[in-house]
């Protein structure tokens, strides 16, 4: 029996259970909990094990379809949440990262994508894994920053600006690396670093919005903070357009970045 998407529901459920347990332990401790970090790390290891098995079964890196990118996204959400918890001790961050990872896992369980065994020629490149991996990791960090921004809007007393800034610098740094490795790859594959293809245009929009957020001076007024949170949330919506929303636009018909057709 081949080990792949057919056992995903069972393995992912185990990972979710471990992550939920880690989130509960974290919520119950005011200081950083070793048990919470350990449980979250175990959840990550379970997901990594599945990715490894899927990789082996498919005989190629599982980085091609929307389902596979959601798999990486759920994995990196857990990683980003655990790293953030370990580094900055936000005891509620594990709950949010678990929730977001669960959403993507559930989507993958309910709507599994059909996977090809072979990659199309454009994807047969050494740039493929670093390009998509750093994007996935940046999406996770930027997703966490968005959650903090939502918290900042909902709860006036929460001081989240510093935490968001840290996540944004990490996320934008990786997003930039993703864009640039994509540009280098595009030059080899299609002859231009940047061609304002629909996906590239949305990536530029996302980049511009995130840069706008980190260039806003830190002010203590509620109005300034809300504007900052609003830009972070808008940038994340733009990121969703860049990631998969663009596939539903008429402009995607001309896109060289549509790999599933």
């Amino acid at each position: 029996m081949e080990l792949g998407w057919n056992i995903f529901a069972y393995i992912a459920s185990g990972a979710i259970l471990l992550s939920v347990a880690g989130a509960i332990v974290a919520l119950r401790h005011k200081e950083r909990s070793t048990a919470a970090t350990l449980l979250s790390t175990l959840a990550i290891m379970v997901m990594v094990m599945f990715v490894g098995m899927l990789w082996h079964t498919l005989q190629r890196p599982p980085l091609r379809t929307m389902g596979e990118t959601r798999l990486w996204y759920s994995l990196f959400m857990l990683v980003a949440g655990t790293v953030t918890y370990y580094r900055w001790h936000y005891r509620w961050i594990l709950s949010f990262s678990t929730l977001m990872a669960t959403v993507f896992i559930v989507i993958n369980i309910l709507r599994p994508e059909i996977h090809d065994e072979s990659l199309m020629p454009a994807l047969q490149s050494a740039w493929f894994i670093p390009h998509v991996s750093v994007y996935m990791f940046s999406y996770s960090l930027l997703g966490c920053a968005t959650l903090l921004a939502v918290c900042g809007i909902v709860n006036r007393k929460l001081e989240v600006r510093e935490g968001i800034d840290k996540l944004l610098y990490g996320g934008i740094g990786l997003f930039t690396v993703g864009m640039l490795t994509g540009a280098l790859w595009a030059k080899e594959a299609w002859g231009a670093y940047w061609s304002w293809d629909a996906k590239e245009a949305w990536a530029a929009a996302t980049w511009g919005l995130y840069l706008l957020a980190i260039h806003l001076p830190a002010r203590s007024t509620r109005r300034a903070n809300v504007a900052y949170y609003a830009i972070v949330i808008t940038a994340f919506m733009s990121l969703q357009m860049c990631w998969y929303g663009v596939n539903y636009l008429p402009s995607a018909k001309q896109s060289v970045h549509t790999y599933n057709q």
Partner: protein
Amino acid sequence: MSKSKHRWLIISIVAMVLVTIDAMIDGVDIALFAFPLNVLLALLWIIVVARLWHKRNTTIGEFMLSADATKISLGLMAVVGIVLGTQAEPKTTSISVITAIIFTLTHLSLIILRGWRNAKGIRWRFTFLHCGLWLLLGAGFWGAPDRSVVRMALGEGERSTIAYTTDGAAQELGYEVELCNLLSEQDGAGRLTKIEADVVVDGKRATLSVNHPMSKGVGTKIYIVNDGKDGYAVIEIINEPWLYISFIGIMMLLVGAIMMFAIGPKK
């Protein structure tokens, strides 16, 4: 009316005028600005930037170095991305897009100069990020008119010295391209899995495939761009003399981005 409101009113009027112009015309034919005109215009722009830097205490100088100008530059990048990302045929040469790029480049130039002037030591991250973007954006913008793309279709054993532009105009290459062998493989569903073309270009043998173009001379790369199912290889020859400046810009920006991730925000 306050100075800030006055400023935003002028910006809004300029934006509306640009959008109106774009609604009336198709866009700028950038081929008209090919070398040496683009280099002359770039030099002229550098003089304007130097003049603005010299006059940085005037109203326009202060504005171009202000936080508002940064917000406008980055906001424009986002707006341009959203607009182009929703257009079926992106109008990358519209007056609005060109104005946005010139504004951003001008602001970026002044910010770099101020950053260096005020720095106590070498600001590596600032320099890599801002100069990298300046080179990348500048080479992409000023070098765009010099970029040329021509194609030729060859069957196995065929050779030619003539390629065709996207408008269908014939162009003498000055060297010969020969297709020796073409390999095209598909999976069971008819999807392309492999395409390889053995070619001889100007006496030099190479194998072209997706992600593996052939380099020829300064700024020229040769690609295979079709699936080869019909027995023909479509060879694309792209000449981009400003390629190396863009590459340096990308490398600088990459280093800056990694530093951004590693260091995080500075207090």
